[in-house]
């Protein structure tokens, strides 16, 4: 009986692990599935640790006892009460809010750029199986790309179409990789905004 339960649990675990963030969130919210919640938190736990490292480097033992449990608790509470579109942004905001002020609870709210990006991503995902819609969307992206500044357009074309790395672009432009990433992010946001409006 025990072995049966274990096998059942393992298959359940694997099935849940294959689910997307969105599905896990809805399971945790609607079905009050603690397992789904655990898998979601586990999926982001290493990033959470890495982000917290600079602030806890002096006392990692205490962090394991206090910081992580309270952040996880906050995330668990947020999962039940907040509308989460993008799990990574939600984790990032919650962790940053905790590091800045551990006593203050700041609700998660997605930025406008993030919403525009999410909207465009959803449109692309929907168009994947519909050729006509896909062509229309491609034409729209081309137009939006053409309206961008030359530098932004260059970076996007090089990065996405030519598969250049951050390091390549940084070397070519003489920027740091962080700056290349930031510029790309801004250019992408502009593109998403144009596509949304």
């Amino acid at each position, binding site marked *: 009986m025990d072995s049966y339960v274990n096998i059942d649990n393992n298959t359940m675990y694997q099935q849940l692990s294959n689910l997307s963030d969105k599905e896990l969130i809805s399971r945790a919210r609607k079905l009050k599935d*603690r*397992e789904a919640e655990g898998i979601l938190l586990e999926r*982001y736990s*290493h*990033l959470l640790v890495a982000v917290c*490292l600079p602030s806890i480097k002096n006392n990692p033992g205490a962090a*394991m006892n206090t910081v992580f449990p309270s952040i996880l608790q906050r995330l668990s509470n947020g999962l039940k009460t907040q509308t989460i579109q993008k799990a990574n942004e939600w984790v990032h905001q919650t962790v940053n809010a905790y590091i800045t002020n551990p006593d203050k609870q700041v609700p998660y709210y997605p930025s406008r750029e993030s919403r525009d990006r999410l909207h465009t991503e959803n449109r692309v995902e929907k168009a994947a199986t519909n050729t006509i819609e896909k062509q229309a969307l491609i034409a729209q992206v081309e137009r939006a790309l053409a309206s961008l500044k030359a530098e932004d357009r260059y970076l996007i074309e090089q990065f996405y179409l030519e598969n250049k790395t951050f390091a390549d672009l940084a070397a070519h432009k003489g920027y740091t990789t962080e700056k290349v990433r930031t510029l790309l*992010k801004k250019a992408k946001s502009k593109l998403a905004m144009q596509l949304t409006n």
Partner: protein
Amino acid sequence: MSNNTVHNENEKLLKIFAGIRCLNRDQLPRYLQGRLTDIEKHLVEQHLVDCDLCFEALQALQQEGQLEQYQGLSANIQQYIRESIKPVSQLQKMERYVRKTKQRESMLIYFWLVAFIVGGGAILYLMQQYNYHKPVVARPVIPVLPAASVAAAPLPPPADSTSTAKPAPLAAAATPPVIPVVKKDTVKAAPPPAKKLTPADSAKKAPPPKTVKDTVKRAPDSNAMAKPAPARNDTPAATVAHNNTPKKEEKKEESSKPAASSSTAMDTDEFLYKAAMVYQQQGDLNEAINRYKRLSSSGNPRIGEMARYQMGVCYRNKGQNGKARRIFKEVVRMDGNMKQAAQQALDNL
């Protein structure tokens, strides 16, 4: 061919907005160490453009000595999550199962409990209804029949009817053996006023006089009826009426003379007398005797005499013949309307 490449180029544009998952536990250090394939690295970087969490994590890990700490802590937090959430979920499942079974059981228990309570309540209610209706069915026989109809209705001849046959032609006062019949009649005649007027209610004197008058007025009729059926005439009302008829005019004169207060006092006595008769009819002889005693000492001689006579009847019915005889003698000595009846009762004792 060129068309195809253009098409592919265009399709690559959509790659800009492809949703890519965050870096997993292994990818993070491997990216830092440059141990990713070109495709994998490109995908990670595509994701890094959007994801602040992964980018900040990588930046934090780039600092010296953080990678070792990261390995240990990430393993710990994973363990912590598994320990804190999974057992809870297992417990929750068990609890949910136990709660469901308990709920099912408790629902059954509640159902039977409610069923028993409702059943018990229904049985009690039915019993009460049955008990309540039972006497109600028996009761109406007495009050429903009005005095006049009772007086007119042929009564089954009493056991002593042979003895009553003798005084029948006389159609005079009631003979003692007929008294049981008298009793029945009086009960039937008495209840309506008696029900309305218990001694406590004697203050309400307005409605009673009418009924008294009715009985008085009815007296001649019943008297007339008495001739063909003398036995029926023996109701107290009838006897009273019969005795009263010769003196009716005198009485009217009397009643017109005294003040209103004296007439109301008389009425009260009469109704107390009737109430006592009701007790007598219902078989509560002791209570009836008490009331008659009180009445016999009252100011109204006629009522006093009648009360005494009925008291004698009560004692006789109780089997106390000595007391009955003494009281009948008293009535005879009083030399009033009831003298004859009392004398006859004495003879029969």
